[in-house]
């Protein structure tokens, strides 16, 4: 089992897996999953929802690493939290863009301020965008790491609210694909969705490890320069 999961432990293995899954997911979206009553624009769902779930997951991972930093004072947890939140904002931006394209097709508008789901997601996205402004307004060191970690933890409270907003909404304009009765879609559509979700999670994992590698290298070079010169 450990050998089987080994590719998930390095950026290259994850990148290869993500490429394969994206190719399979795209093929399944257009050649396997049927076009439903919503028409061709429903095809955006297969990437839009997994991207949104990936954004939530990476923000959550960032908050977890922030907690590890504050609680256990683990070296490097602050950097891991920062990289995860950076990933979250990228996937968050993609969620907003793909969602707007879908909304233009379905509703005839790029954005609807009356939609709680959209507005709450925008609030989470902007909240984490300001994380970077806060982080870089403080000089590097333990104080910056601690304040950033506390801020990252506050943001995670918004995630379950945003996730449930669609069910709390009264107008239900935004479609509900998953209810208490299970996924409201055909088996082939659900299988395609799961492959796309796996693709986005492995892609996020690969990018996370790659960015983390770059940041750690950067830090080591700085340390080395100070030691040598």
């Amino acid at each position: 089992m450990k050998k089987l999961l080994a590719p998930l432990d390095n950026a290259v293995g994850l990148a290869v897996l993500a490429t394969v899954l994206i190719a399979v997911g795209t093929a399944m979206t257009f050649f396997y999953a049927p076009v439903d009553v919503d028409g061709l624009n429903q095809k955006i769902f297969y990437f839009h929802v997994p991207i949104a779930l990936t954004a939530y997951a990476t923000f959550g991972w960032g908050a977890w690493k922030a907690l590890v930093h504050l609680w256990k004072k683990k070296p490097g947890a602050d950097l891991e939290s920062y990289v995860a939140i950076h990933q979250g904002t990228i996937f968050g931006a993609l969620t907003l863009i793909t969602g707007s394209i879908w909304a233009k097709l379905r509703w005839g508008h790029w954005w609807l301020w009356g939609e709680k789901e959209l507005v709450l997601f925008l609030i989470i996205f902007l909240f984490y965008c300001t994380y970077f402004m806060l982080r870089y307004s403080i000089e590097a060191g333990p104080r910056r790491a601690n304040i950033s970690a506390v801020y990252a933890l506050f943001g995670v409270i918004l995630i379950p609210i945003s996730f449930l907003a669609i069910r709390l909404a009264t107008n239900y304009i935004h479609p509900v694909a998953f209810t208490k009765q299970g996924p409201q879609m055909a088996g082939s559509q659900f299988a395609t969705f799961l492959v796309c979700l796996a693709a986005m999670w492995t892609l996020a994992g690969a990018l996370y490890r790659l960015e983390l590698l770059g940041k750690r290298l950067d830090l080591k070079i700085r340390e080395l320069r100070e030691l040598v010169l």
Partner: protein
Amino acid sequence: MTSTEKYVAAAYLVVFVMILVYVVIIAAKLARLDREIGDLADEVRATRQDEEPGSAG
């Protein structure tokens, strides 16, 4: 190509282009780090040559 097809294509294109841009940025950063390691190695080599006995004047 219908209007719907154009929008769906645009949504997928945005995702792929944004990921590609991100990968290019990371690649550029790694290339910069590679250059910095090279510069650092050159500086260490130069310092060691200066410190070698008999190398001065």
